[in-house]
């Protein structure tokens, strides 16, 4: 298979920061006014901009990401239906750029889940009891094992999470998705010929 390699992901071991909210939409993750750019980097400072900063640009005390103790956390823990709303991939870019390598939630919106998987940001949907435990233990170090598709922490039994099999294979092996699609060019040619397209 002629594919350009990306960096494989096998295990993520990092501390969590907890944002205990359901239905976190992509307008909160990155407000639209930061989308007028032609680049795909530099979004970290705008992550959760209106929750992190007040109208004068000062950090809002009480917002989890502003707590110095959460600095360096690599896993964001949120509630149900994370990433709903707009299709903006900038949301995944901003989380990645800030330093997150995974988001753990009760569930994910479809487009956000896709966008995250394409940017090496692992969407980890865990069962309710595991999510409740993680929410109650902010800052804990978690181990996300993509091979076993489990999330574990000291004091938390490994919780299973679903990953689309091809996305898992692709991430584990550093397979580039566009490269894979291009490798199917023969089939695409044949399809176009068959319908006179």
């Amino acid at each position, binding site marked *: 298979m002629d594919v350009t390699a990306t960096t494989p992901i096998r295990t993520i071991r990092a501390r969590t920061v907890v944002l205990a909210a359901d*239905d976190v939409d992509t307008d909160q993750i990155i407000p*639209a006014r930061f*989308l007028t750019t032609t680049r*795909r980097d530099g979004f970290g400072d705008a992550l959760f901009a*209106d929750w992190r900063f007040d109208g004068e640009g000062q950090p809002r005390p009480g917002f989890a990401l502003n707590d110095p103790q959460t600095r360096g956390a690599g896993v964001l823990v949120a509630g149900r239906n994370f990433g709903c*709303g707009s299709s903006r991939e900038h949301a995944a870019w901003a989380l990645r750029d800030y330093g997150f390598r995974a988001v753990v939630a009760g569930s994910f919106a479809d487009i956000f889940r896709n966008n995250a998987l394409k940017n090496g940001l692992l969407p980890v949907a865990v069962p309710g009891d595991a999510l409740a435990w993680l929410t109650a233990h902010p800052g804990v170090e978690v181990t996300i094992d993509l091979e076993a598709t489990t999330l574990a922490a000291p004091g938390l039994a490994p919780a299973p999470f679903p990953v689309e099999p*091809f996305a898992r294979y692709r991430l584990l092996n550093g397979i580039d998705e*566009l490269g894979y699609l291009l490798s199917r060019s023969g089939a*695409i040619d044949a399809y176009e010929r068959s319908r006179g397209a």
Partner: protein
Amino acid sequence: MTPRTLFEKIWQAHEVVAETAETPAVLYVDLHLVHEVTTPQAFAELESRGLPVRRPDRTLGTLDHSTPTDAAELLGRIPIRDASAAAQVAALERNARAHGIELLGLGDGRRGIVHVIGPELGRTQPGMTIVCGDSHTSTHGAFGTLAFGIGTTEVGHVLATQCLLQRKPRCLAVTIGGRLQAGVGSKDLVLAIVGRLGVGGGTGHVIEYRGEGIRALSMEERMTVCNMSIEAGARAGMIAPDATTFAYLQGRPGAPAGEDWEHAVERWQALPGDAGAAFDGEVSLDAAAVEPMISYGTNPGMVTAVGGSIPEAGDAAFMKALRYMGFEPGERLAGKRVDLVFIGSCTNSRLSDLQAAAAVLRGRKLARGVRMLVVPGSQQVKRAAEAEGLDRVFLAAGAEWRESGCSMCIGMNGDVAASGQYVVSTSNRNFEGRQGAGSRTLLAGPATAAAAAVTGRVTDPRELAA
């Protein structure tokens, strides 16, 4: 043969490679719509790999999201004020030229919001797969297409291969019995549907809307319904094509003509789902029971009748949303103060939407202190409205009549509300800050929005009916 749904027929007809347990399907895309905000990074990716655009002829570009709606900026009399927005516009102009993609540019009389122009030009046709780097691509499903939003990486995939890797979603039937009452519109219907399903209720699904209440809708009304499918979490919403669909398309520039038209209609007539085709779930709603609707919270599932009240109690998220909105549990919505009214967006910016708003505003003035923006969905809609004198109705009332674009729906083009302001908006999202940092959005249909502009308060538009 197993009876198939509309969705299954279109899905199967576009499988270049069928999905297996290990690999997703390679799904062919008939029409790829592109705009200035979610494409520059995708074109850059192609450039860095030295890849051409596979099918520029199946790609259509427009400028809408960060493009200003101020005539002087838009038509080049003064530079676009936001330099980064100007750079996005320039990037799409450059990329379209370099790859031979048709772009409806700044001065083009056909330019407009991506989900308005596709149908208007007859490029959106039954049976197609349509994608765009925008979640409201679901709008096109009103024509019996499978249409959904994608991210920028996927935009690059489609540019390079005209295909996407996709897992087959499940299919949810939303069956609408009865007919809407006079004075109630399709926006009210879809707000009621989203309220019923909740913002995550359609996740993992494509919705097929069906039943008498859907059949009775015009194409513009059907587009409003399909548009907001994503607000219930469903990537796509679809309606089986029928005589209403064909009548809308016939004679449009992109639609087949002559003998080709007859053949196309014959093909399209085979698209509706077979009798007995199975869905993964079904939700039913009575259109006749729907009242004019409005949102009170910070997601599109938080809705109530304009004459109704906010629920008495809810969870922590409910209380947080009410704090943001400055509302109390159990309060009535009618009579709430309104600062700004926005008529526009891919949800409600077509001619019939402007007509509905103008019918309320005719011979009336905006309430003191209220600002109102009316932003047609396309330059063609703008001209059609002007031909009927609707612009004069809006201007005489004291509203602003602007050039087409996404405007205040997304607030990244200079059109924004100030922090704390209440906006009654015909758009699709009431998320915190969606229409400007700190802005507070109440989603409603065009008649309800126009009524709020006249009274300066949340008002049931039927109270102002002539």
